[in-house]
């Protein structure tokens, strides 16, 4: 029995403003909904394996058997009775109460065939909305592999709507799905709606299931076996810690060759441009402003790609939910919950998606606390800064087996940020935001082999957004800074050597004067005016400090890489190195704490609907950064020299 064949007369007139059919995808987290969305729209969208990842409403155009349609990817939910802001959006959207958003003409419920027993509860709620609906069954291959058997024809008859089994990641069943989705006017409608009360819904689901489930799937043997280790009281914690150590060690070690290659490429490009173009202000702008600025950011793309790749791999594998299970008690101690961990973990990549992921947290107090501490999680924009300073000043020495000193320092910085976030969150919960604990529930999905294409799509999405930032904010700031560093143009005393003359011109520039003006404040931290200029510039975005330093040092030494330049830089007066161990440590610690990111402030403003919280976050983090850097500088220099 196909959907078209059993069509009730098209009772529902599928109305649409632009003549385009609007289909809403509804489903629980881990149902494979986003995979279906991607397969139908071809849009680059993130697909997660952790409950709560699908927080944004996304739409995409799809070609359904010759019909153009808009697919709306609704946030993953277990129920249409909302308990969080996220879920309220879904129910309001479905009810047509969301301003500016047209409700979908028809609904597509996506359900994991292996947990149909639970998914039918959501199906029942959707059916009661009275819109044309259809059910897509995912993971049917997994159902078979686990020895289960489902009678799809009987399911269609029992529920009363079309049922389409698919294997989303292999594209099986998608053609038929497209044909059916293109014609919602032909979808069968249930003769009797499922009951309204939760308890009766349960009975309804049981009776449907008893009718259609020929053989119940066994438990996933792999998941059982793996969980016995990964969730073991001792082994699970050890694995959790080991995964984190390995994570950072691998990122740091593997990225180096690619970074060196890009570094060299940028150097060659600059050299070629300088050779080909006539000397002058335009060439200076192109080479020192644009190529150097953007190049210094792109060079760190390998690390970002590796970080995102590992993060998504673990997520799609199903490990992130396990990590939250292991860590939830700790989050409970500081007054937050597992989903805050996901948000904070996302902030490792970037605080912007991390802050947006807090929408899944039902309590607004917990939400604000999580938002306020998310900038403390070490985001990927800090990685270039850490990498530069660590590579330049920390010896590449093996400490224990393959674990090197550089990797350990990086790990230490990550830990410092993470622990500070937990401490600050606990303090905020006890002072500004006292409140009850959140209801906590989380599904542990079966382990699933991630498809490389999916991971690649996710990584590309993340890398692209990083590059977009590099291409817009950073390029603009690079050009602005080039202006600040080169104007006003002064004539140096005629007897100076060319390098010294450039340095002189730089010190006389707007940026140089600003750096000097800040020196009284920066000297206690061990920073000179050049670092001061970099810090001012980094208020736009952390990684801009690299472009800035590259520009400052390009004026004194064009050929050596930035790493060499900062390593060999000495105070003109004393002849001592600018970057002493204390200065390097203080600068690293400053970057652990300070909120130097325009995008983060903007998204905080948007999510809290007030400038109050971004202002608060910026101030407390700046105070923290200054205080910690001061202490570290004093302590390290006292012991090192």
């Amino acid at each position, binding site marked *: 029995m196909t959907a078209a064949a059993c069509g009730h007369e098209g009772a529902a007139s599928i109305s649409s403003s632009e003549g385009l059919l609007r289909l809403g995808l509804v489903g629980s987290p881990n149902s494979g909904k986003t995979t279906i969305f991607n397969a139908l729209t071809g849009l680059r969208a993130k697909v997660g394996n952790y409950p709560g990842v699908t927080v944004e409403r996304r739409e995409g155009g799809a070609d359904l058997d010759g019909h153009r349609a808009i697919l709306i990817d609704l946030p993953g939910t*277990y129920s249409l009775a909302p308990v969080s802001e996220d879920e309220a959006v879904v129910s309001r959207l479905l009810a047509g109460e969301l301003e500016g958003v047209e409700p979908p003409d028809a609904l597509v419920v996506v359900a994991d065939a292996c947990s149909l027993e639970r998914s039918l509860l959501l199906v029942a709620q959707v059916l009661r909305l009275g819109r044309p609906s259809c059910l897509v069954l995912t993971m049917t291959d997994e159902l078979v592999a686990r020895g289960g058997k489902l009678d799809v024809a009987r399911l269609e008859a029992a529920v009363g709507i079309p049922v389409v089994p698919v294997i989303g990641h292999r594209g099986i069943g998608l053609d038929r799905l497209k044909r059916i989705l293109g014609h919602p006017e032909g979808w069968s409608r249930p003769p009797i709606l499922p009951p309204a009360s939760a308890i009766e819904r349960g009975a309804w689901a049981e009776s449907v299931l008893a009718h259609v489930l020929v053989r119940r*799937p066994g438990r996933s043997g792999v998941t059982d076996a793996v969980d016995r280790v990964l969730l073991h009281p001792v082994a699970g914690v050890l694995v959790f810690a080991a995964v984190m150590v390995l994570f950072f060690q691998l990122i740091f070690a593997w990225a180096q060759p690619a970074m060196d290659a890009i570094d060299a490429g940028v150097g060659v490009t600059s050299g070629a441009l300088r050779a080909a173009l006539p000397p002058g202000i335009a060439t200076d702008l192109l080479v020192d402003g644009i190529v150097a600025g953007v190049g210094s950011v792109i060079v760190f793309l390998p690390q970002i790609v590796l970080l995102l790749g590992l993060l998504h791999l673990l997520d799609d594998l199903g490990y992130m939910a396990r990590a939250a299970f292991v860590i939830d008690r700790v989050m409970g101690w500081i007054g937050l919950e597992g989903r805050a961990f996901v948000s904070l973990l996302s902030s490792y990549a970037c605080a912007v998606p991390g802050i947006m992921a807090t929408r899944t947290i039902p309590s607004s107090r917990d939400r604000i606390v999580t938002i306020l501490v998310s900038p403390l999680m070490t985001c990927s924009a800090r990685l270039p800064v850490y990498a530069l300073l660590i590579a330049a000043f920390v010896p590449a020495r093996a400490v224990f087996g393959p674990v090197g000193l550089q990797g350990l320092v990086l790990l230490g910085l990550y830990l410092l940020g993470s622990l500070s976030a937990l401490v600050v969150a606990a303090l905020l919960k006890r002072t500004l935001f006292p409140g009850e604990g959140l209801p906590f529930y*989380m599904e542990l999905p079966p382990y699933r082999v991630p498809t490389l294409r999916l991971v690649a799509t996710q990584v590309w999405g993340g890398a692209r957004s990083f590059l977009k930032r590099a291409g817009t904010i950073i390029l603009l700031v690079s050009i602005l800074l080039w202006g600040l560093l080169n104007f006003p143009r002064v004539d140096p005393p005629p007897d100076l050597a060319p390098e010294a003359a450039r340095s002189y011109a730089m010190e006389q520039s707007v940026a140089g004067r600003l750096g000097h003006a800040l020196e009284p404040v920066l000297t206690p931290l061990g920073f000179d005016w050049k670092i001061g200029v970099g810090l001012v510039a980094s208020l736009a975005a952390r990684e801009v400090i690299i472009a800035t330093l590259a520009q400052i040092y390009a004026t004194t030494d064009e050929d050596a890489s930035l790493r060499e330049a900062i390593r060999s830089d000495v105070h003109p007066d004393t002849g001592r190195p600018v970057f002493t161990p204390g200065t390097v440590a203080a600068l690293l610690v400053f970057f652990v704490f300070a909120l130097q990111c325009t995008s983060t402030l903007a998204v905080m403003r948007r999510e809290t609907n007030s400038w109050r919280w971004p202002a608060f976050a910026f101030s407390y983090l700046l105070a923290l950064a200054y205080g910690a850097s001061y202490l570290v500088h004093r302590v390290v220099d006292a012991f090192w020299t």
Partner: protein
Amino acid sequence: MAATPLSPISFAPSPVRSRVSETEHVGLDALEPGERGVVHGMRGDGPIERRLQDLGLLPGTRVLVLRRAPLGDPIEYELRGYRLCLRRTEARRVLVDRSPAPVAAPSPSRRK
């Protein structure tokens, strides 16, 4: 107590229910890993309870306690073909009938 008595609803196997209907209801958090129970109802009637119901913790639902997290909380349950973690505070809201220790020892890989 807001727990609704079971309505006579047809869903497949019921001998378990009748056997335990006389025992006392305990919170879901009181079950030890490896123990099974059948949901009786909820202790209250708030949004959290409603959400727990929507997650499938409905009267008659069989629940198996899989394990506790390494630090003791949350607890992983298996019900309705999936695995759900709840903290003790939420699990306590769910009233269950403790299933007697399996006499005819059902294989752990197949429920009921």
